[in-house]
């Protein structure tokens, strides 16, 4: 039976329309077969890839071969590895050469341990790349002011983190995400830190346009099954958001001396 939860409404980023609100990363998988299987099971239409300076890759390690041939998938190079704007800009240009798409995920984390994004380098890189016509999707701290600055310089979307990459701490930044969502003019995609499909659903229920998951699928017990679960969760969260959650209850007891007693019945 076709469940209504799987029907998703389209969203637009950088002038391109997508129906899937689940983006997938391709890192940390044990082999290409699992990775491809997970991407297929996820229904993702935007898939991030990284760029490395290397020559020959043995057949069995060549992860991206099959992905490049799949229909309906937009490869989005990330600039991961770059430690500053200059390196990220170079990586973006090389990535565009390779993938042929204008999409780029600007990802600049100078500290290789916690992998938190550098807001200043990210802003500088985004500014340059947006001016060069890239569809800039910046991975960023969940900061509402930075979000507006990135919008102002022409980013196509915002990708605030839910929590640190690989931490599995879910939507630790929920309050900040709400502030970003309130005044956002471009799509908001929660990226990093999600662990469970329910967290992905919560992100969509909150009003986020999409989520990106990588570790949560790649490091799960059964990545292909988990990818499918995330797809269902994202769909459910989106439908729930559009349906409108029931109101929060509580806090409506009436005081003994009403605050509104001063109101006159007739106009003065």
């Amino acid at each position, binding site marked *: 039976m076709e469940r209504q939860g799987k029907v998703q409404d389209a969203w637009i980023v950088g002038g391109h329309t997508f129906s899937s609100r689940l983006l997938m990363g391709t890192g940390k998988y044990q082999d290409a077969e699992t990775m491809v299987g997970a991407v297929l099971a996820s229904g993702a239409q935007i898939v991030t890839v990284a760029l490395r300076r290397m020559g020959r890759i043995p057949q069995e390690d060549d992860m991206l071969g099959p992905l490049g041939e799949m229909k309906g998938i937009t490869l989005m190079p990330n600039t991961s590895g770059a430690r500053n704007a200059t390196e990220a800009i170079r990586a973006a240009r090389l990535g565009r050469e390779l993938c042929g798409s204008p999409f780029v995920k600007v990802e600049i984390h100078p500290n290789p341990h916690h992998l938190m994004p550098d807001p200043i380098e990210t802003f500088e890189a985004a500014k340059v790349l947006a001016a060069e016509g890239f569809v800039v999707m910046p991975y960023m701290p969940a900061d509402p002011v930075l979000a507006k600055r990135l919008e102002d310089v022409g980013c196509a979307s915002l990708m605030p983190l839910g929590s640190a990459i690989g931490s599995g701490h879910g939507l630790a930044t929920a309050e900040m995400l709400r502030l970003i969502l309130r005044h956002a003019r471009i799509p908001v995609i929660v990226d990093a830190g999600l662990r469970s499909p329910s967290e992905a659903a919560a992100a969509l229920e909150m009003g986020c346009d999409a989520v990106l998951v990588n570790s949560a699928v790649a490091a799960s017990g059964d990545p292909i099954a988990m990818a499918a679960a995330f797809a269902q969760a994202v769909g459910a969260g989106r439908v729930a958001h559009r349906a409108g959650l029931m109101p929060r209850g509580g806090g409506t007891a009436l005081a003994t001396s009403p605050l509104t007693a*001063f*109101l006159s019945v007739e*106009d003065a």
Partner: protein
Amino acid sequence: MTPQMPAWLDPSPWLDGRASTHADVERALGCDEPGPRELAALLSPAAHPFIEIMAQRARALTQRHFGRTISLYAPLYLANHCTSGCAYCGFASDRTQPRRRLEPPEAEKELAMLKEMGFEEVLLLTGERTSHAGFDYLLECVSLAAQRFHAVGIEAFPMTTREYGLLAEAGCSGVTVYQETYDPRQYDRLHRWGPKKDYLGRLEAPARAMEAGMRTVGLGVLLGLSDPGFDAVCLMRHAGHLQRIHWKSGITLSFPRLRPQEGNFTALFPVDEAWLARLVFAFRIVLPDVPLLLSTRERPEFRDGMAGLGISKMSAGSRTTVGGYGGAEPTTEGQFQVSDKRSVPEICAMLRNRGLEPVFKNWDSAFRDASVRGHD
């Protein structure tokens, strides 16, 4: 030719014609991120029984975002010259009343009086742009006021971004431009002639002020001109639009209500106190961190009751004649009738009695002047 509402303003997606129900109001009150639809529900007849609950929610939110304080400011009418023909206004060009402007020395006297009364924030008002009281005159008055007051606002006439920039450099920190009504047809009808007939020019003025770097813009509607529910939702849309784009500036909202004044224009859509109160509560609920203003148009008991229940800022001891603080009998008639004639000390005593602290200075001209002199 009736002007068109821009898409960003058009409230029709949220006003679907269906009357709000009790359940809609409950949903609105329990909504995490209330929007125009929720505002419409809170303003509907179905929400009238919820007024006390809304008042409690408004008080809690006001305390959270503004503390137990009320900001006080004084309006100073610099001139009542006007060439526009707004049907509802005491300054309309077809109304016979003496017209004059404060010459700079007079303005200085009035400003000194206001400073004596304890004010640190002044709002300078004029009618529409005229040769008697145009941009250069206003710029000079702003400079005079900025020397004495920490916050100087203007409520005058729509200007260009360049003009707003010059005013900001001269020390102006806020610009108030009420759209009066967002209904294009009503707007066209009521603004019979003159520069104010330009609906879109006026609508875009706050954005230009923000572009020019003004710290705050004041938006508002004159209740009674059009369907107040419609105007309220449009006001919320306007506020949201500006906040999305001009995120470095702040906004404030005000809901002046048509009261009797010379010329006796009768409100076409009269709004009673209970509805105005509910409007204030509703805006506090849907926009928890936006300052809401209440003027001396309203009677003392109403102002007392509303202070802290959503209202975070009030004018006090107001004169709506040209000048008028100097002690001499005013030679012009007021733009509107002041209902709350209490002095500043009386207002402060009332506020303290209600557990609210009057605040005169919310910001320091030292910050303003640092950028004016290019010290950043």
